[in-house]
């Protein structure tokens, strides 16, 4: 699989629009400004995933992309352990950092993920003029690499490289950072590229 520089740019722009909607919803929930990086689009060989994602503990809320594109792939909200705790502390009115994740944390993270990823998918789908709906979410609080390789094994059964699509979000006030990661299925990626191409020629 290879992507041209222009296709990479188109994907970045698509991610940018989706992520800014997601960032906006996080900003409203935290009542605090959120900074966002320009999205990165990288083509990663499955043998090199560990160069990008390590085994630090993180909270990952994951959704399957459903709707017109099926199987669509996966989209997730990634948050390092300390950021995830700070986020739920902010929401639940606690300050205790030195604790384990409990059920309240998990449901708060699921809810934040749900709102942000729905915004992300809705904005990208509207732009592409298709229907993309997130499945009910699931959450894993574990080594980031262990979680992502499990998802990647689903989208990379026939291919040896995946497109990872990543935007970092940061709240300086609350010291919270996270990322939205999109791992489209191969056919979905091609479909998205075709739609983008058509839009530009328009």
């Amino acid at each position: 699989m290879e992507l041209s520089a222009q296709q990479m740019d188109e994907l970045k722009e698509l991610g940018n629009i989706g992520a800014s909607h997601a960032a906006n919803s996080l900003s409203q929930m935290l009542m605090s400004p959120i900074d966002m990086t320009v999205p990165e689009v990288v083509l990663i060989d499955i043998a090199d995933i560990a160069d990008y994602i390590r085994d630090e503990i993180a909270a990952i809320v994951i959704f399957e992309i459903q709707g017109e594109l099926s199987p669509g792939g996966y989209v997730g909200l990634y948050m390092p352990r300390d950021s995830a705790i700070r986020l739920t502390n902010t929401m639940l009115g606690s300050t205790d950092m030195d604790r384990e994740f409990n059920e309240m944390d998990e449901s708060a993270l699921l809810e934040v993920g749900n709102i942000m990823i729905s915004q992300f998918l809705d904005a990208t789908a509207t732009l592409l003029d298709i229907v993309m709906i997130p499945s009910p979410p699931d959450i894993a609080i574990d080594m980031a690499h262990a979680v992502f390789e499990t998802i990647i094994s689903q989208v990379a059964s026939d291919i040896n490289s995946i497109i990872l699509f990543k935007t970092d979000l940061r709240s300086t006030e609350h010291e919270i950072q996270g990322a939205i990661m999109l791992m489209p299925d191969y056919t979905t990626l091609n479909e998205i590229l075709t739609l983008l191409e058509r839009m530009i020629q328009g």
Partner: protein
Amino acid sequence: MTAIGLGSCIALMLHDPKRSIGACAHIMLPESGGKCDRPGKYADTAVPLLVEELIALGGVKRSFVAKIVGGASMFSNFQGKLNIGERNIEAVRAHLQTHGIPITAEDIGGTVGRTLQYNPLNGGTISVKRADGSCSEL
């Protein structure tokens, strides 16, 4: 050799204790379905690959032993789709049995990720660190 953050994937270490040599594969899926471009990725192609490579290094097949780590179930709601850890374990076991290679140690299944280090020179010891903070030696 190191395998970082194993989730549903399996690290298969094939070890020849008499010669202190070993080979390791990071297996992602149970079946290759006839694809042969990445033999280490699938259980059915990784087992014969490691056997060949270890023989090429001077190993003798009848003394080979296997250790396996990984195959966790990382999600609770997505079980049907993402629970390939279990299928990976079964496939690796079946292919090792076909080759008559015994499994002498394993740390598999469960719901947590694992990182491991394997040193063929040091008696083939494997140190495993789990996401819940626990550690063990295989």
